[in-house]
Every structure is written in C-alpha cells, then in structure tokens.
C-alpha cells in the first residue's frame, strides 16, 4: 500500500504475467503508450502455470492489496496446456479465499494475448479501480509487515 500526498488510498497490485503472451501484451500497451496506474507492478514468469498459490499469498502477506494473474488465452499456451492447469488451480484457490471471507475482488485471472495491449491496459485500470474500492487488504495481511 502506498499513500500519496492527497491521501487517496493507493493499492499495491502485483501482476504475474506469462512471458509469451501477457508480458508481451503489457509491453505492447507500453509501445502504444496506453496508460495504466503505477500501482501495478509486473512479475515475469515463463507461463501462468508457474504461479504457485504460495506466491499469491506471499504478495498479500507482504502488503499487496490485489493480485492479478495474466496468461495466454486458453488453447494458445506456448506450452500447450499450462494455462489450463492455471485455470483450475486459480479457480479453486480463489474460491477458497472467498470461502475464508477474503474479498473476492482482490484476485483475478485474465487472459491477455501478445496482441492485446489495449486489453492489458484496460484490465489493469479496471482491476486497480476495483481494488481501490475495496480499500487496503486487512483480511489477509500480516500485521508484522504493515508499514509504520
């Protein structure tokens, strides 16, 4: 969480992007100068299926307010089937977080191809707004990590 001068809540968003589609899509939105908030910080992974639920929980623990995972569209995975596994894993993980009463809008999976720079920027804008509405992550934070 960052707080800027006018004290509006600025969520910290961690975005895991697969190298082949979504990271390239993010690059494309840069190339096309499509804005999205600085709140979003991207971590490059080879495939969305590399993202372990541990990483997502870790992000929340250390202060993230929202975590989004982006990968190739189903059927377009560079590794043929990686995102299919991602989809099942994340569906179940998100469902569990929801079951524990963690706000469901803090997590999301989005398929963004290398050609969808505009979709990437739009998704990030939208997701940041959604998390902003929720306010700071309090239900899945580690108090020890909260900034004084």
């Amino acid at each position, binding site marked *: 969480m960052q707080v800027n001068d006018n004290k509006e809540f600025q969520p910290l968003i961690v975005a895991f992007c697969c190298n082949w589609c979504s990271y390239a899509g993010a690059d494309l939105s840069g190339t096309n100068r499509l804005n999205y908030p600085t709140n979003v910080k991207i971590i490059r992974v080879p495939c969305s299926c590399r993202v372990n639920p541990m990483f997502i929980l870790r992000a929340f623990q250390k202060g993230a307010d929202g975590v989004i995972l982006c990968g190739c569209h189903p059927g377009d995975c560079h590794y043929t089937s990686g995102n299919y596994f991602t989809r099942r894993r994340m569906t179940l993980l998100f469902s569990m977080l929801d079951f524990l009463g963690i706000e469901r809008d803090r997590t999301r999976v989005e398929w963004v191809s290398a050609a969808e720079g505009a979709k990437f920027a739009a998704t990030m804008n939208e997701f940041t707004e959604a998390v902003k509405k929720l306010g700071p992550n309090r239900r899945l934070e*580690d108090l*020890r*990590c909260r900034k004084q």
Partner: protein
Amino acid sequence: MLRISADKIYELLGAASAAQTVYIPSEREDGEAEFKKYESGMKLTNRLNTLRSAKDFFFPQTEDLVEFKVDGKNIEISDVRKESEDFIIFGVRPCDARSFTILDKVYLVEPVDSFYKNRRDHGTVVTMACSRPAETCFCQTFGIDPTAPEGDCSVWNDGSYYYFKSNTDKGQKFIDSVTSLLEESDTAELDKSIEKTKEVMKKLPLANLSTENFGGDKLNEYFSSDKWAELSESCLGCGTCTFVCPTCQCYDIKDFNTGHGIKRYRCWDSCMYSDFTKMAHGNPRLTQLERFRQRFMHKLVYFPANNNGEFGCVGCGRCLSKCPISMNIVKVMKALEVK
C-alpha cells in the same frame, strides 16, 4: 480462613480486575476451557482444566526478541523488550501451578531469561484446588496435592464458598486488594469437602502410578531400552503433546523478513519435530524413535538428573486426552517399568 460466598465470586473478580488484568478459565463455544481476560458477565468454567496450559502467560508461543530495521545498506538494531504490566491468573490448577516451579528451574537460573522473568515478576498466580479430578489426572505421582495447591495465593471451593490463603507477598497483595469482600470463617465445611476429594483421588485409575523407578540414575538403563521402538512406532511426530504440556519449555529462534526489517522471534518448538535442534548436518535424532525417546527421557530422567530429582511432568493429563494416537507418558512409564 478468609472466604467469600460463591455467588459473590464475580464481584471479587470485578474488584480485582479494576486494578490489573485478571485472567480466568472460562468456557468457549466448543465446551473447552481457556484462560480469558476477565470481563463483567464472564463465567468460570466447570471443566476441570483449560485445554492449553497456563504456561502461555509466562512463556507465550511466540515472542519477539529483537528487531533489525533495514534501510538500504544500513541496519539498526532495536530492543523490543517492554516492561510487562501486573496481571493475575485466577484459577490455576495445582498441576499447572507446579509447572511454573519447573519452568523457573529452566528460565530463572543463570543466565536468567529476562523475557520470562519480566512476566513472572509481574504475574500473580492464584490457584484453585481440585474437587473433581478426572480419570486422566496423575499429579499425585509427582507429589502434588490437588487439595493443597501452590502459587501466590491458594483458593478452595467447597460448592458454597471460595476460601483464600496467601502463600507469598504477591498473594497477600491480591487478598488485600479484595479484603473488603472477604469474611473470616472456620474451615470445617471445607475440610469435609477436601476429605471427599481425597477419597476420589484414591480411586483414580492412575492413583498407583509411581516415579519410584525413574530419575537421573536410570539413564543408561532406559536410554537403551528396547521398548522405545514399539512405543514410538505409531507416533505421528506432531507437536500436540508438547504444545498442550505445561512443562515443555523448548523454543526455536527464527527471523522474519517484514519487508522493512527483520523481526527475530522465538516460538515453541517440539522435540517430536523432525527439524528439532537441526544443525548443519541435520537432526541429531535421526528417526521418530529418538525424538520420542527424547521427550520422555527428558521428563523422567534428564530433568530430575539436573534438578535434584524434580520430574519434568506434573500429571495434568492433557497429553493423555489430546494425543491423536493416544500414546502418552503414562503408557511409556508403565512399559519401561516392566522388566
């Protein structure tokens, strides 16, 4: 002896809690008892004892030791020790009361554990004599009289009255703080109730369990006993026994990266764990057999060897009811004794 009518006990707790925090054993939804901060309206539990022992007050499961603030290449070390506030634990059972004596022998000898001492200095232990011991109780084995509890102040309940007797200055201070609510009386009724309890104690299934065959001089005999393999074979290696035990005192020190620094904290450890006392080469206790043996050898042999014959167990019976596979110190003692 000073006493108060049973219906006024909450008045007394209320008065005491005005001056300092008072913790009482109280029931939660699932029927188990735990020590909770006393607030008006709370009730004392009818359960014999709390699920977790009272050691948490002096030796909590986790405790920060020191903090390192990291800013770039600069590291600043800060002491996180704070002087504890005074508090009262009301209703500690005689077994748990004895556990403090055992923990003291570990933490108050040189080098004194300042975290433990700080809490111990500020805590007043008000014990409660037992009147309905359970089948899992075997405190008598370790020379504890559940009708004559230790602690700063001892309390008895005969059903109609609570009787108070101070054993230390802290105990006396507690009685003084509520003295206006107490009345002087004889102990005839109480003595009758104690007699009844003593009768029950004789009938307890574990009444005849003895420490006669245990102690520091049994090291070689028991360490190499062939019973351990059979006793430990179904042990799951979990830490339940350790964590509900009032006398287990081992901890691990760990660092946690908060993102803006490191918190160094200690937390309970269990000799049942595969990574207990793990060193560069691994765990010196290679299999569950050795880990299992360690726990019981510690309580029945090593501890008395180092502490003038005092055993590292108070017979509270928590491990008897909580072990997932019902293996426990009583079964171990009985098995080892058989020649």
